[in-house]
């Protein structure tokens, strides 16, 4: 699981049919101090996250598990919205 910040939306009418009910969002991976690490990715939103929100997402084929289908070509899914992060610096 990784921390990220939602930075935008992607609209795609022509997509894998199982994904029609889901938003696709741009996520910028971040660390615990809210600093960007790495390149933005696109993730399926399964929890109703909005731009600007801090979230966590899962990658690889596990990203399909929150979806109501057993198969979908998805390698990143937002699975939670972060309320607070508590870290010993």
């Amino acid at each position, binding site marked *: 699981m990784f921390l990220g910040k939602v930075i*935008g939306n*992607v609209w795609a009418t*022509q997509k894998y049919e199982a994904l029609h009910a889901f938003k*696709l969002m741009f996520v*910028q991976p971040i660390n615990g101090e809210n600093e960007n690490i790495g390149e933005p990715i696109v993730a399926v939103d399964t929890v109703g996250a909005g731009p600007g929100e801090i979230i966590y997402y899962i990658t690889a084929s596990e*990203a399909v598990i929150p979806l109501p289908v057993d198969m979908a070509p998805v390698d990143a899914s937002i699975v939670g919205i972060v309320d607070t992060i508590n870290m010993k610096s």
Partner: protein
Amino acid sequence: MFLGRIIGTVWSTKKDENLIGAKFLIVRQLDLKLKEKDNFVIAVDSVGAGEGEIVLVATGSSARQTEFTKNKPVDAVIMAIVDKFDVPLKKYLQEQENLT
């Protein structure tokens, strides 16, 4: 998934027999300003994408999660054709790109 633009097609007759019938497209990765990056992948098309189109590519074992690519040696699949994307947070992208 990553954002990419289809820049070409690969045909190959001599290949793993599981891959017969697959359409291989060359996808160059793009950044949020649609500038082409150095890396690209050969991806199997699952949504009928064509050359020049902006698409999303899923990689790794997730690429096998479609009817066609199930149990096949595929690690990149085109799973969406992007109509439009929007990155409102100014510090990430100045203007909003409209692709239609």
